[in-house]
């Protein structure tokens, strides 16, 4: 709806600065714990103050695996800003994680924040 009429003032102003990230894990495994800490570290560095992380443990809500089409664990989903992006793994490779989130400096119009 946003891209339909970008100059329409009737729609509430979205907050493009706000990042909504969802991390799917399955129990407190070493990979899951690593992913959580790696994600926090990267966000603090690159998106300080404008990110929100939601961790979903599929062992508690297994039905979400089907609903959100999760195959690999851990999976990080960038829900906002659109489009949706998926990164899998424990996020130990920071460079690749930044590429996945499109936070790499050369693409990075948002990097200066």
């Amino acid at each position, binding site marked *: 709806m946003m891209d339909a009429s970008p100059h329409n003032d009737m729609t509430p102003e979205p907050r493009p600065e706000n990042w909504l990230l969802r991390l*799917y894990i*399955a129990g407190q495994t070493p*990979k899951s714990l*690593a*992913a959580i800490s*790696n994600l926090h570290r990267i966000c603090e560095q690159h998106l300080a103050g404008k990110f929100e992380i939601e961790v979903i443990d*599929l*062992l508690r809500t*297994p*039905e979400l*695996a*089907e609903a959100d*089409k*999760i*195959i*690999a*664990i*851990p*999976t990080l989903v960038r829900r906002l800003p659109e489009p*949706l*992006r*998926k*990164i*899998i*793994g*424990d*996020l*130990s*490779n*920071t460079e*690749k*994680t930044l*590429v*996945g989130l499109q936070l790499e400096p050369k693409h990075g119009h948002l990097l200066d924040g």
Partner: protein
Amino acid sequence: MTTMSVSQLQKCPTGITGFDDITGGGLPRGRPTLLAGHAGTGKTLFALEFILHGIERHGEPGVFVSFEETPAEIAINVASIGFDLALHQLENRLRVLHIDLGPDELVESGEYDLDGLFLRLGAAIDATGAQRIALDGVENLFAAFDDLRILRAEFRRLMCWFKDRNITAVVTTERGVATITRHGLEEYIADCVVTLDQRVDDQIATRRLRIVKYRGSAHGSDECPFVLDRNGFIVMPLSSAGLDYPVSSEKLSTGIGSLDSMLVGGIFRGSSVLVSGRSGTGKSSIAAHLVNAACARGERSLYVALEESPAQILRNMSSIGFDLKQWVDAGLLRFHAARPTARGLESHLVALSGMVEEFTPQIVVIDPITSLNSGQDSERVKAMLIRAVDLFKSRGITSLFTALTAGDEAPESTSVAVSSLVDVWLLLRNLESTGERTRALYVCKARGTAHSNQVREFLLTTEGVRLVDVMLGASGEILTGSGRLMREQQQTAERVASQADADQRRAILERRRRELDAKISALRAEYEEEIDALNAEIEQGHELSSRKSSTLSALARVRGNTGSAE
């Protein structure tokens, strides 16, 4: 716990026609099976039937996991072969999962596993209590991730997970170029590996299935043809797993009394008969006799006409006195006409098998099998006929095949080398002599029967076939037709001639006897006359002498007073 003996491998029936026969009962239960084939070879259908037959026939719930097609596409595919996916899903016997790997670019950063997939499969398995699972198109899973090291490890873990849960799995994937599968999955699924293949010969597509490996189970390594049709996935075993069908010792009449006596009472029920001969030797007539006799007994017959139309066959048979149409009308005789070239051999066999299932005939005639040969390699035709014979025998159906011998072939040869498959082989021959062509019949072979070794002349009359003993000529040659008639007449004449001769000689003897008798009577009369004369003479002599002595004594008495008394 009691000590576990090495238990025999349990089989999990797929319900796929023919497949369970060649595997001795199905797939290894509680283990994964790899099914590899190129696109369009029927992998998905195999996997679907495995799951759906499991639900419908064996009460085993299942999960179908597609890495390619959407559930809607799958539902459409199986609706055409009569499965209702929605109902099974509603009643919790089935889950269809679509693992959408999508076109989204996945970025991989560090270590991961496929626990998401495990969770989704686990949820579906738990919801249905599934005992069977199919993973269709796993090459797509491998294509979606970069780290093949992780994928392989996870795939191995998945297979072990199925085994631990005692779930029988079918995993389908693309064929590789040098290996069975593109990702070398055969390394992880070692229990059972099946390949599907499709090739096109003479514009006819033939699909083949091969069991490459089946650990712990005997299996044929032959390629078995299969078809995909409205009845689904149908495998045709090259030969049945065993030859252990029941045999009957009941003899059936061929409808030709004299042929029955050559075969000591007819043919065994459930046996197969080959009638071979050149064009016009009367092969179809023998078939018509068998069919007519069966229908008259109230049995059903299926007549597969590969060359002539049913109408033509009915007309031809009425010319030798058969009203086969009455049996058609009574529902006892069914014709199936098909041009052999119009379809592949396998399709023919499938059509045949379908008709056998539906019509349940006691007699099947295929007339002529040789026309299956056109444009086909004869090994394939033979393989198809072996399967046809097996199909009939396993159901106790008596079958008759006619085979046309081509002009340049030896009479004993059939272009379809099936004579070894059949139980009875009747050979029809044309004999040319005395300026005409006649027909002769031999029993080349009759398993389990002390059959006649003789040749019979084969007559087609308006009352059907008649077999006549042949005559042997002066030098032992077979005489038929007018040659036989001439020989018969000649023999009659000879008999008549010798009869007349005997009568004449008997008359002479009689006359001589009578002459002799007359002579004897005359001699006896003469002799008696002589005796009488002699007796009369003796009598006379005696009388004279006694009269003389009495005269003398009278004289003595007179003279005695003077002489001797004093």
